């Protein structure tokens, strides 16, 4: 089956992104297809390349990155939500004249259309909120 996940909560503060990560791993393990993970609202902070975690705590953005690279996943951060929350790639940092960018390279900034497109292309859409 084809799945799309929507993640609406920030990591560390909320458990929802961690639940979503475990769910994503389980569905891939079972041979299902993960069409896209769409990060919305404070969920855009899952795409931060600047998160550091003590050695005994998990780093969600790095885990998303690793999962995406292993399975060639499409992990999209909502561009409108991200810009208002300070999550930028190099292009947007330049466009908005910010001093740097902080989006992990495995993530892509794109519009809400990617959420609608993914919903149309998927058998199931699961929201993880907090």
């Amino acid at each position, binding site marked *: 089956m084809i799945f799309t996940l929507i993640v*609406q909560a920030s990591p560390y503060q909320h458990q929802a992104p961690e639940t979503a990560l475990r769910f994503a791993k389980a569905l891939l393990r079972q041979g299902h297809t993960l069409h896209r993970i769409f990060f919305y*609202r404070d969920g855009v902070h899952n795409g931060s390349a600047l998160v550091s975690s003590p050695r005994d705590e998990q780093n969600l953005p790095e885990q998303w990155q690793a999962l995406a690279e292993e399975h060639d996943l499409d992990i999209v951060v909502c561009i409108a939500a991200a810009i208002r929350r300070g999550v930028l790639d190099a292009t947007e940092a330049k466009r908005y004249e910010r001093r740097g960018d902080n989006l992990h390279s495995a993530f892509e900034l794109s519009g809400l259309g990617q959420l*609608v497109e993914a*919903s*149309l292309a998927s058998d199931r859409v699961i929201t993880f909120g907090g």
Partner: protein
Amino acid sequence: MSINKRFLLISRSAPYGTSAAREMLDIALTCSVFEQPVTLLLLGDAVLQLIRDHRPDEVSQKNLNALQASLAMYDIDRILIPETALQKHGLSTDQLSIPIELINAEQLPALIAEHDIVITI
């Protein structure tokens, strides 16, 4: 896009205290731009989003009433509110910013079942 799916967006949040109401409308308008039919269901405190005469400049936010008024132009005309939610807050339909459709609580399970994609926000 050729495939049509019926989207249902569910909100449970009052306006302005969080960005949920605004960001639900952003999804709704996007569904419409992609020519997908979309229904909005406002539960609990989300009913309060539709009270008229917002003046959110007082708290440096954009006016949701204006966004709500634009829904019809995007052919988003199914905005559903359970009668019980309206009663709970002591509101009547003529106090609301836009026309809505009242729904009996008993109809809610059927409403869910007639949609393909349900997104809560």
